């Protein structure tokens, strides 16, 4: 099984799906000749041609809207938003259109669309190349939202998204592109949408999160185990919508102490809903108040290195929060 980077796994998923189904195509800014600003689509135009890997005009609403039109007649577009920060011109197409096509037509039409967008900071991108867009779309029924942490899941979830009959937003963390490296099978597999995944078994505290911050939680858990004998149970949500309620409840019951982590800012974030589910379903099984460690409630991440560092989660911040919860 080859070791590959998170970004390679995403690219491989697209390549495999395009080989498997000629209706799958990629469109977006700079995705063709250049292969994407992060090289996510590198080599795809060479293999599949200009017709299936389309360099579009710089207009996000058209990228989404054209993809929606094609999807409604059975094509399987993968629309790339260069940064999730630039996805907002397409929100009307995504929320008013893609999310509602099945519902408003009473199941007559559907929209098997995938929108890929890099999220998150840690690359000195400043306010408009670092945001997490998931809470903007979270809570819009009709959309599915996935945000993989591992390379294995990135490949499997993207393949599942392409085959899904409904619109899926695929949020890939740009800091994970090169940071996460692991064994990824070259064969055809999918990771089902809607299923969370326990990435570490433990008995003292539960950490629930998604995307890059889980990388810090895994490192912190290792250290806390070795240094303090604290055993952390970690749940990767993987799919943000629909949330895997059963897995959230089960992981909570396992330890009775929950820390929710994400890079998106705290207020109105996915963690708020996870906390609400826990409160509704198993409040009296908790041994400590539900904790959240998230990006601060400021408009976006500043570019200056100390400020970016202040904004971002890291191993030490996550470790401290885990320790405090364990000691509660």
């Amino acid at each position, binding site marked *: 099984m080859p070791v590959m980077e998170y970004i390679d796994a995403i690219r491989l998923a697209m390549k495999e799906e395009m080989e498997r189904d000629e209706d799958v195509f990629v469109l977006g800014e700079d995705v063709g000749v250049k292969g994407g600003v992060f090289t996510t689509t590198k080599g795809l135009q060479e293999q599949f041609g200009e017709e299936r890997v389309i360099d579009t005009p710089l*207009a996000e609403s058209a990228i*989404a809207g054209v993809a929606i039109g094609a999807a409604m007649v059975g094509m399987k577009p993968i629309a790339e938003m260069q940064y999730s920060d630039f996805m907002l011109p397409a929100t009307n197409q995504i929320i008013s259109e893609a999310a509602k096509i099945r519902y408003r037509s009473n199941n007559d039409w559907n929209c098997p669309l995938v929108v890929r967008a890099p999220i998150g900071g840690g690359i000195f991108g400043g306010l408009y190349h670092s945001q997490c867009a998931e809470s903007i779309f979270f809570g819009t029924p009709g959309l599915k939202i996935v945000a993989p942490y591992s390379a294995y899941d990135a490949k499997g979830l993207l393949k599942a998204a392409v085959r899904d009959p409904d619109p899926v937003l695929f949020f890939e963390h740009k800091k994970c592109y090169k940071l996460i490296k692991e064994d990824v099978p070259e064969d055809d597999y999918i990771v089902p949408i809607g299923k969370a995944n326990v990435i570490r078994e433990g008995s003292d505290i539960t950490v629930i999160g998604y995307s890059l911050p889980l990388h810090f939680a895994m490192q912190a858990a290792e250290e806390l185990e070795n240094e303090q004998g604290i055993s952390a149970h970690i749940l990767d949500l993987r799919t943000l919508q629909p949330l895997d309620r059963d897995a959230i409840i089960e992981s909570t019951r396992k330890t009775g102490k929950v820390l929710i982590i994400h890079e998106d800012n705290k207020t109105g974030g996915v963690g708020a809903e996870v906390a609400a589910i826990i409160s509704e379903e198993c409040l009296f099984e908790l041994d400590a108040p539900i904790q959240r460690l998230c990006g601060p409630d400021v408009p976006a991440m500043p570019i200056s290195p100390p400020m970016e560092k202040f904004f971002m989660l890291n191993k030490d911040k996550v470790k401290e929060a885990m320790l405090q919860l364990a000691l509660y």
Partner: protein
Amino acid sequence: MNAKSSVSTKSKHEQLGLSNTEVVDMYKYMLLARKYDERSLLLQRAGKINFHVSGIGQEVAQVAAAFALDRERDYFLPYYRDYGFVLSVGMTLKELFLSVFAKAEDPNSGGRQMPGHFGCKRLRIVTGSSPVTTQVPHAVGLALAAKMKKKDIVSFVTFGEGSSNQGDFHEGLNFAGVQKLPVIVMCENNQYAISVPIKKQLGGKVSDRALGYGIPGVQVDGNDAFEVYRVVKEARERAVRGEGPTLIEAMMYRLSPHSTSDNDLAYRTKEEVDENWKKDGLPKMKQYLIDHGLWSEEQEESLLREIQQQLKEAIMSAEQAPFPKPEDTLLHVYASEGEV
């Protein structure tokens, strides 16, 4: 007789390749749409339905455009005033009234959307929404799919001049211009965006914008069925030849208020409206048919009686049809297991 004089003796519709039957059918759909619209207005005034948005004054262009397309194969993205269009491509009166009464069997939305929000896969009418002009990029996407699958079909999309100011209009047309896609984009310029007249909506002409997209832009008299038919037909021929999109601006006048919730005399004068009734394309079409011996007052009366009967039956059966079950509100957010 030489070839030249034989052409000149042909009537307008024959020159365009329309048979006598077709041109009479066009008129029938125009009149049907007008009567449907008037009746819906009455139903709202009588308190039978909550809302109606009217297309009176726009039927001639709508029906003429539909007849210039391949009504068996092309894809259609009409906007909320396009009753004449959807009737012409096969939607029935009963189906329209099922939507008006928000009944379960409404093919447009199963009673979920406002009337005038068309959608019917059987007729290749693509589901639409209320935020205006979002359908233009969709039409471009359908045309892209047609090009990729090498199908000789087009997508046809309409909207008003007010909504031609939306970004999606520009983004969609530019994309289509770059990719030379088989899409026909027709603005039904009815002079008003609810209350705001064109002089406050448009700095220039909608059709002139085509220049910036590298595509043909044509302004046409929307009250002239034959001119609309001609430009749409030519646009379709260009599209299937692989020569790309066409922007058409059909000039007309919204003779009714914006909707049943609107008092139009708050922002325009009765004189102005009356003046525009004189330009209505519907009686002109009738006169054309009479002048060419294709229609008579007797036929008109008989058709009106027939339409009244059809309206009565359609309303009755739509009114009696069941509402959706309240709990069906929860259905079709996502595909069910095994569904596409």
